[in-house]
């Protein structure tokens, strides 16, 4: 029996998901020995032609990591879709757009301007920006087109499985690979994560959720035993899928929401905002004026980055509509 073919492909990613594969340790060797890697450019010297050359539908499992931010990502996504029986949106960027998805507050042009012209270290007096097509020394140079709107993988191609996390928890990587090896993959649509929110796994004691102040991380030395949210630290845990076994909160770091919304939540950020609005100044609720509530809610610095850090492209808003 031939070994199942596996592809690991990269869209717009920091490649952190790749590193997490290495965290499998000695298992990596076993896994590599039992599958046929048809494409994994970070793992070995693969060329796109390697992937193009395998028959359509022959790849048992593809892990696609990263968001879709440009035409190159999109082409690759469509190619692996054709080649694969099952595609996993691997990591938060592929699942929800991730950190690159925060670019949906801006446009490609404005981001380019920031990156190539406006930074302190830019030396670009002419304000030249990368162009999809340019002629250099009589030769055509082609660059991928950067999109205005960053998308998650399933907004571009149909996806069988989701494995959220920044990076995804090891146990789920193992679970997926083992399932692929044994040919016993779960039903399409399966999310490799817990059905419950992070609080289910968090070992901190929870008392009463009544926030009287919101604390930024540097403003407080949190009690390591008590619920961070109850201490005023914006922990996204209640609105975030568990499954990661809460390593961040175990280390006094609030959950940033990388595992994405829970199964029944339409919008992770909106859910957390709604929860926060419900428990903020609970004791002084009746008759409290907006004058007193507004400063309280203004203690949330960077609301977009807090509530939609990983999920803007898949949220109800998807993006900020550019001013014309």
């Amino acid at each position, binding site marked *: 029996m031939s070994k199942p073919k596996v592809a690991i492909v990269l869209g717009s990613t920091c490649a952190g998901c790749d590193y997490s594969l290495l965290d499998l340790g000695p298992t990596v060797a076993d896994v590599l020995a039992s599958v046929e890697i048809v494409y994994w450019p970070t793992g070995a010297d693969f060329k796109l032609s390697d992937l193009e050359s395998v028959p359509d539908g022959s790849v048992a499992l593809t892990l696609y990591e990263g968001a879709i931010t440009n035409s190159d990502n999109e082409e690759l996504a469509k190619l692996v879709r054709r080649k694969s029986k099952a595609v996993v949106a691997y990591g938060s960027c592929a699942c929800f757009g991730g950190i690159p998805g925060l670019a949906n507050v801006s446009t490609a042009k404005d981001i380019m301007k920031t990156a190539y012209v406006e930074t302190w270290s830019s030396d670009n007096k002419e304000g030249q920006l990368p162009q999809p097509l340019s002629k250099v020394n009589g030769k055509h140079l082609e660059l991928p087109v950067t999109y205005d709107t960053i998308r998650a993988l399933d907004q571009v191609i149909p996806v069988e499985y989701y494995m959220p996390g920044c990076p995804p928890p090891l146990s789920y990587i193992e679970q997926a690979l083992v399932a692929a090896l044994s040919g016993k993959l779960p039903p399409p649509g399966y999310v490799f994560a817990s059905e419950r929110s992070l609080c289910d796994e968090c070992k901190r004691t929870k008392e009463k959720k009544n926030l009287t102040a919101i604390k930024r991380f540097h403003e407080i030395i949190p009690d390591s035993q008590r619920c961070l949210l109850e201490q005023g630290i914006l922990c996204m845990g209640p609105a975030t899928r568990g499954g990661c076994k809460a390593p961040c909160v175990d280390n006094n770091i609030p959950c940033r929401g990388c595992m994405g919304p*829970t199964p*029944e939540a339409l919008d992770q950020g909106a859910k957390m905002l709604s929860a926060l609005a419900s428990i903020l100044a609970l004791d002084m609720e009746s008759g409290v004026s907006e004058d007193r509530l507004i400063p309280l809610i203004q203690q949330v610095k960077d609301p977009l980055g807090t509530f939609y850090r990983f999920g803007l492209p898949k949220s109800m808003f998807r993006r900020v509509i550019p001013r014309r």
Partner: protein
Amino acid sequence: MKVAEEPKVGVYVCHCGVNIASVVNVKAVVEYASTLPNVEVAKDYPFMCSDPGQNIVIEDIKSKGLNRIVVASCSPRMHEPTFRKALERAGLNPYLLEMANIREHCSWVHEKQPQEATEKAKDLVAAAVAKARMLKPLETIKMPAVKRALVIGGGVAGIRAALDIANSGFEVYLVETRPSIGGNMARLDKTFPTLDCSQCILTPMMVEVAQHPNIKLLTYSEVKSIDGSVGNFTVKILKKPRYVKEDVCTGCGVCEQKCPYTVPSEFNLGLGKRKVIYFEFPQAVPLKPVLDRENCVYFKKGTCRACEKFCPTKAIDYTQQPQEITVDVGAIILATGYGLYDVKSKMPEYRYGLSKNVITGLELERLTSATGPTKGHILRPGDKKEPKDVAIILCVGSRDEKHLDYCCRFGCVAGIKHAYYIVSHIPDARVTICYTDIRAFGKGYEDFYARIRSLDNVQFIRGRPMEVFEDSNGSLYFDVFDQNTNRLIRLNPDLVVLETGVVPDPSFEQIATVLKCSRGPDGFALELHPKLRPTETSVDGVFLAGVVQGPKDIPDTVAQAGAAAASAIALLSRGEVESVPNVASVNQELCSGCGVCEPICPYTAIVLEARNGGRVAKVEATKCKGCGACAAACPSGAMTQLGFEDKQIIPQLEVLAKGR
């Protein structure tokens, strides 16, 4: 009541006579509705709520196998129960109904834009269909009701309500903060328009309360907390110590006679004195004295003990402690009554509190009453002389946008009655009534008004005095512009009686907060519907009697108390309460026990249970009122409100947001 997988929706558009059909093109809405997904049939009818209208729905459910019904008519507040029952009669789960309000939300407000109104009606119907497709059958919540009632407030409203409930065989707790029941009516000398002696008609009822085997009377007691909901309220009542053993005391009154100290009497509104151990008034019920600890020399200095010494039955007990009593009741009647508008601080221009000879109408009642501080002789407080020239000013604080914008509903006729008091007690006195309008609307009031108006020594001036002055020798005077004669008139009365505005009793605010019962902008309790449900509140099982709902005279108060009692009796005799199951429901598989929902539930219906070292939320459906706060707050989506799930609302919103 099985529901087929594929929704089969029936849409029924009501004309509501001309209420809808004169604005909205009903036929066009029907035509459009029949094109919507899963719509099996769409029809219209002049009155969907009528029997034939309901029968159309029932017949279609039976013959066409419809499993979702959309009725486009009036507000669901009006007829949702009607159509739910129709579904039930057709054998369909009653909660598979969705209403589109194309009357209040559409035809009534867009009368002048029929075209747009028709388009809006289509959108509302499409949204309702979108939601209806996602509806799930629900079961009505039923639970046993405690067959006992609580009446808060022992004035005439509370007394009447308590007696009515007790007479129908149910147990009643009657709670009153003062040492005796009777309320403000006990302070009145006579009642208009018949001039019955107020005490004479009230005290038999008070005595009946005291002797009724079904009434547990808790005077000198306050409601501290109310938990639970219709059918099952748990009420904590704090019974303040009287320092008198009620079971031993015979009410002989020796303690009161022997007590050497006096303080101003609350019952007489400060016009007379009472002893430190005292009866509120001679006909007090229960006829047991109260020792006023604040002013008692024994409690202050440890000496005296005169009451204890002279009590023939050894009923004085200085060691009594406040007692907390917990009672379970199925229904609550609010009868907390009224207080007077604070004229002293809010309207200093009338010199009430500055001049002793400016008094309120209620104070005049005490000065006229045989049990009052002057033993029924009208003597003005300033010099204890008979006033010969009395001015009565109506609408003091009432019908005044700077103060209370509403009418007190009894001030006019009370003022007329007060004029009668003066001229009948002091035949050579003159009375001037300064009025805004005379509102003598009650039965027999107009006759009474005509009778007093015809008296030679009672004069009526249509006008509101701006300010009352007092000259250096203490004489009062004021100017009033008489709108009937277009003349400015100066009056030099030796007594001014203010018919002051009426406000809810201060105790009501706390009770309303505890009960979460809605109040109007004026602070009075808000009835559920002014005409259809005038004794009910926004809280099921809580009813209104008397001025707590708004100013009233005694006949109206007693009538409403009877109506409130009837509502409570109906509830208690059913012995069971049903509630619409639009309650919160938690999917425990998804709940991670984060605890966001628990503290925000205003009805303490959510508890966090232990589960595998963690927690999980649980909703007590019978306590839940379906406010939706938890469902909105739940960050994981594990909490939903049945009938208003995201999966049901979002398609509805999408239709409205996308348009067609």
